[in-house]
Structures are given as C-alpha cells and as structure tokens.
C-alpha cells in the first residue's frame, strides 16, 4: 500500500502527529526542570537583595546569608498598609510568603497599563495603585545593628524590562542599589547594572518633601543629594530607572511614614 505523501490528508495527519509529539516532549521537559529553575530564580533573587545591602553572595551561600541578614519579609498594599509579615525560612513554594510576590509579573500585568493611563500624572497613578489589589514586598534587613529596608523596583527601559533593588536606611538615606535589565543596549543602557552607576546612589537621600523623590539627571548635569548623573547614551534607560524609583518608592514611603508615626 503506497501512501500519497503529498495528499492533503497525509499532510494534515503528519502535522497533527508532529504537534502532539513535540508538544508532549516540550511539556515534559519544562515540567521536569521547573523545580530546579524555580530554585535558581529564588537564589538569584536572594543574591540581588543581598547585593543591595552590599553583601556579595553566590548561588551556594545565598539562602544562608539571606536568613542571616533579612529579619523580616513584609507585604504592603498600594496605600502603604501592611498586609502580611514573615520571618521563617523562605519557602519559594509558599504563595502567602511576601518573598513569592512576583513584582515583575505584577508590573507587566497591571502597573504598566496604569502608568500609561496616568500619563505622567503622579496623583492619578498614586490613586490607581492605592485602589488596586496589588501587593508590594519589602525586606527588612539587619546589618551591623542598622535596620535597612530593601525595596524591589520594576520598570521599562528602552527595549524591555529593567528592575532593581534599592536599600534604604530608616532616615531614607540610600544604602545601596542594584539594577539589572533584560535587553538594554550593551555599552549604553546596559551599563545600569555596572558598579560605576550603582555606586553613585550610595549616601544619596530621598527627597520626602517632593515633588520628586529622586532624579536621574541627563549626562553631565550637576547633581545634589537627591539625584545622580544618568548614563550618557542611555537616556531612555536612565529615565526608566528614574520613573520606576519614583513610582515604587512613593508607595513604600507611605508605609515608612506610618511606621515612624506609630513609633512616636
């Protein structure tokens, strides 16, 4: 029996079988490797948070150092009220743990459209975030008896997402910062992850009196204690860093202010 290889029926049958076989094998690969990939992602997150408070960790000791320095994991809502708190050992599978809040996913799904809708109107954006059901994670660390808060920030660069962690002391002095990106231009916007850029943030302050908490200025401009010099040739990425810091820190600032009030 000869099969006509070029008949429509054969072509359809071949495609269907191919799709099923390929689909099954890819699904199997993805599922069987997911545990390891998630563990790697959790390690990476811990390394980034530790990096913001100036502790260099590698994949081997990230979880040990994380337990040592991070004393509390807090989640707050869009208007700065605390929702949950955890200080046990991190379990990446526990969805209630503030550590499991996926800030990048939240940004992509909800915050990005809110930013676009607000169109530069900080007031409107603030209200949109406050009325949303979003949760924001916060890490309280203790290093040499100083309390440092680490805030994750996510935003958009020129080509894709950018993100980072800002470490703040209780008086809103920046203790450290780390940034990373997915697809920024090497040598230009991609430089936000380099030490020469993140070093500049150390010792700067958040301008709680406003209007802007912090600014990334265009290359070469004079900077004060509330601003740093941006990256020459990476203007749009620098603007993205500026935008994500101001938007995100505004939410956390309300939490910090309520904390200070309750202490007094």
């Amino acid at each position: 029996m000869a099969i006509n290889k070029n008949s429509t029926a054969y072509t359809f049958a071949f495609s269907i079988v191919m799709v099923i076989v390929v689909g099954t094998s890819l699904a199997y690969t993805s599922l069987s490797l997911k545990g390891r990939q998630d563990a790697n992602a959790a390690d990476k997150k811990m390394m980034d948070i530790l990096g913001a408070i100036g502790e260099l960790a590698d994949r081997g000791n990230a979880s040990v150092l994380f337990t040592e320095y991070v004393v509390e994991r807090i989640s707050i809502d869009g208007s700065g009220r605390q929702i949950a708190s955890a200080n046990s050992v991190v379990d990446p599978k526990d969805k209630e743990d503030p550590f499991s809040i996926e800030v990048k996913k939240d940004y992509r799904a909800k915050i990005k459209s809110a930013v676009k809708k607000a169109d530069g109107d900080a007031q409107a954006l603030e209200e949109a975030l406050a009325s949303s059901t979003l949760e924001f994670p916060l890490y309280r660390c203790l290093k040499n008896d100083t309390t440092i808060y680490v805030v994750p920030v996510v935003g958009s660069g020129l080509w894709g997402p950018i993100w980072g962690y800002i470490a703040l002391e209780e008086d809103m002095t920046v203790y450290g910062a780390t940034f990373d990106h997915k697809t920024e231009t090497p040598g230009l916007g991609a430089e936000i992850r380099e030490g020469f850029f993140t070093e500049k943030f150390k010792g700067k302050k958040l301008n709680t009196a406003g209007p802007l908490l912090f600014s990334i200025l265009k290359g070469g401009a004079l900077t004060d204690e509330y601003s740093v010099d941006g990256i020459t040739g990476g203007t749009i990425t620098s603007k993205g860093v500026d935008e994500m810091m101001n938007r995100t820190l505004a939410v956390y600032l309300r939490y910090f202010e309520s904390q200070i009030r309750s202490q007094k």
Partner: protein
Amino acid sequence: MSSENTSAVMTKKTSLFSKQNRRLLSDPLDDSNPITVQVLGICSALAITVQVQQAVIMSLAVLFVMIGGNVIISLLRNMIPDRIRIIVQLVIVASLVIIVDQVLKAFQPDISEKLSVFVGLIITNCIIMGRLEAFALANKPGPSFFDAIGNAMGYAWILLAVSVVREVFGSGAISLPGMGQVKFLPTNWFISEGGLYENNNLMILPPMALITVGIIIWVQRSRNQTLIEEN
C-alpha cells in the same frame, strides 16, 4: 556541499571513517566553512563573540541543535510531506532550542543569563536550516550526523577565533566556562595605572567582529585560490 559527494554517500555502503565521512567532517572546517565561505550565521558571530566563554557555550548549543536536527530530519526524510517541510524543520529546530534553553536555565543559570536572547536566536541560525534543507533531507542519518558535527565545528572554530581576538584585545582577558575571566596583563601596564597600554574598546563593538571575520576570509582565500570567484 558538492553533489557528487552527496550522491556517493547515498549509493555506496560506507564504513564509519570512510573517505566520504571524513570529508563531511573536514570540508566545513575550511573549504566550505559555513561562516567564511557560505557566509551564513554571521549574526551570531557578531553578537556573542565578545567573550570566549559565551562563544564556547553557544558553539556547544549549536552543536547539539545541529546534530539533533540533522539526525531527526534525516530519519523522517521519507515521511515529511514536501509542502510543509520548511515548517517541520522549523518546529524541530525550535523544540530543540527550547530544550537547550530550559536545560541551561536549570543547570547553568549564570551562563543562561549571559546568553539570554541569543539561545533563542539559534532558531534563526541560517546554518542549521541550510544543512537540514541541503543535506539531511537527502541523506541517511549516519552521514547527516557527521555533516552536522562538521558544520557545527566549522561554525565553532570561527566563533572561537573571533572571540579570542576580541576578548584579548578588547578586555585584556580570556574567559573560559567555569573559570571566569582571567586577566593576564599586569595591571601596571595600563595607562590608568601609569603604564602605556589601553584596552581597545572598538574590539568590544560589533563592527570589529565583522572585520575579524573579514581578515579570516582574506587569509583563507589567499591560501586557497580556488575559493576566489571569477568576476
């Protein structure tokens, strides 16, 4: 690949290391090199040759996808309907690439981060589709396997050569997988430390990859005059 070579492989029963099979391995290294002679896969030669380490991992990934793709297509060559053969090739290459990406994410997360989008771009690497279309569809799995190794190696050595030149002159270092970047120049040679040497930043930028590939092509053609086309 010359047609007489291809048909010889198809008709004669050949041993594992016959002359034909050896030629399948050695031809792509020099006279029919996918990058310098066929000028395929140039895009990835530009993108990931800043560091030797990335070039090595990329070459291994391409080797795996190439062998997998060539052998699978060759096994299925009598079953694939002609009308959708390009789609079938694409699906198989894409699946293999996704598997490579997932495995790297699970076992080599740091390198996976560095290569980021370039692993996905293996799908569009013209060398792979070119070999599937030109060789695997018409040959048995054995020769296809050797053809895949030959072409992947032809791709790999150009990548390695370019990345060594670019990293040595651009960063004054060599990086190997698992060892990190080894800086071999004494720091007091650099102008910033009072010396006379400065890394050439042009080497880091993409144009230098093209120029380096161009120099390799120049050397190759002056050694083998038969490669020069008549005008």
